């Protein structure tokens, strides 16, 4: 199972607390993880990535294993520790304001 930490507002929308655990079919990539999130929680479609372009929304970032994966290819393999569930995949809202 892959563990994903999603921001407060998305947890509220999805009706979950804490992290979510997802079974991902095939290779663990950003795309397959996001596909699994949206399949499990369809109310989150469009909130993490654009409906049409499938690009990450500008103020969200993807972190894992102390790395910023935001600019990686959506089809790049995630770290083994994420794929195994040892480390979470973090979806983080950018800090804004003053």
């Amino acid at each position, binding site marked *: 199972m892959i563990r994903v930490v999603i921001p407060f*507002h998305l947890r509220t*929308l999805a009706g979950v607390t804490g992290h979510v655990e997802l079974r991902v079919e095939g290779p663990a990539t950003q795309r397959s993880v996001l596909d699994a999130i949206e399949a499990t929680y369809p*109310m989150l*479609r*469009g*909130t993490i990535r654009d409906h049409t372009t499938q690009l990450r929304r500008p*103020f*969200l970032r993807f972190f894992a294993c102390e790395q910023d994966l935001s600019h990686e290819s959506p089809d790049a393999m995630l770290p083994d520790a994420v794929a195994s569930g040892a480390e979470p995949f973090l979806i983080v809202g950018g800090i*804004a304001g003053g």
Partner: protein
Amino acid sequence: MSGVRVLVGTRKGAFILTSDGKRERWDVSGPHFGGWEIYHVKGSPADQNRLYVSQSSGWFGQMIQRSADGGKTWETAGNEFKYDGIPGTHQWYDGTQHPWEFKRVWHLEPSLTDPDTVYAGVEDAALFRSTDAGKSWQELPGLRCHESGPRWAPGAGGMAVHTVLLDRMNPGRMFIAISSAGAFRTDDGGTTWRPINRGLRSDYIPDPNAEVGHCVHRIAMHPSRPNVLFMQKHWDVMRSNDAGESWHEVSGNLPTDFGFPIEVHSHEPETIYVVPIKSDSEHYPPDGKLRVYRSRTGGNEWEALCNGLPQQDCYVNVLREASAVDSLDPCGVYFGTTGGQVYASSNAGDAWAPIVRDLPAVLSVEVQTLP
């Protein structure tokens, strides 16, 4: 006894205020969707318990929420607003052409007869419709694809369809307004549109009498007289007696004719309300005094209504969606401020009182009169 439900959208959530027909004591529920910008909450005229909410965030984009029980519980509806075909371009701030990009839903207008049908006025300016209670949305592209579309330009607040008026007597007719393109009308259910801006004069555009480019802030009509329209423009309060074919100014003795909302009394079609704001450079009331102005003559002759409103050191704004009337007798009038107060008058504006205060900045106010 009849009652009233006031639907308030704010910068940080939605609130629902309810009262009986006396409108003296109010219950407040919320925040619903706390932390999200709620541009608009509106109920279906065909089913008072069906509510639609525009919920948005700079991080997570657009959500639409729907309630079937008057706001006790909510269900997430569809949030995919895809422009029809190749979106094309409109004028950008620097004069270049810029692609149409969906940003948010400013206004939700439920059908007068079908609770599952609802229109959405969006930024960048376009009109969408859902016929499945918000599950899916289809653009009515005739508006955005009007030949003047490439000349539409955003104002400081963006470029949005913020006003959608349905004509109770002519189902094919709708009026919309765009900042800053102007007012448009369809007579065929949204297939084709034409600008209805003759008579508007805006000194802040190169041709003050241009067909499009006017910053219309709000249009209001009385449902019994859909050919009579009232407009609060960026500057100027305007009136049309012919469904927008022509407009004339009715600012009369207002202390300033800049402002955002405009409302029509629910039982007196010639009684209208505005909230004058000092200027487009100073978005607060003149002299620090919050005053609603009422005209009982359809414009030109205005009286200040200040009983119960702050008359010193008040520097809030009242945004374009943030006023409404109920249909009780006497007519109730409501408006919300960027300071988080919602004021109400249960006697057509003669006296006012805050029915809630210290909310986040109020973006929209709608009222449902309950049986």
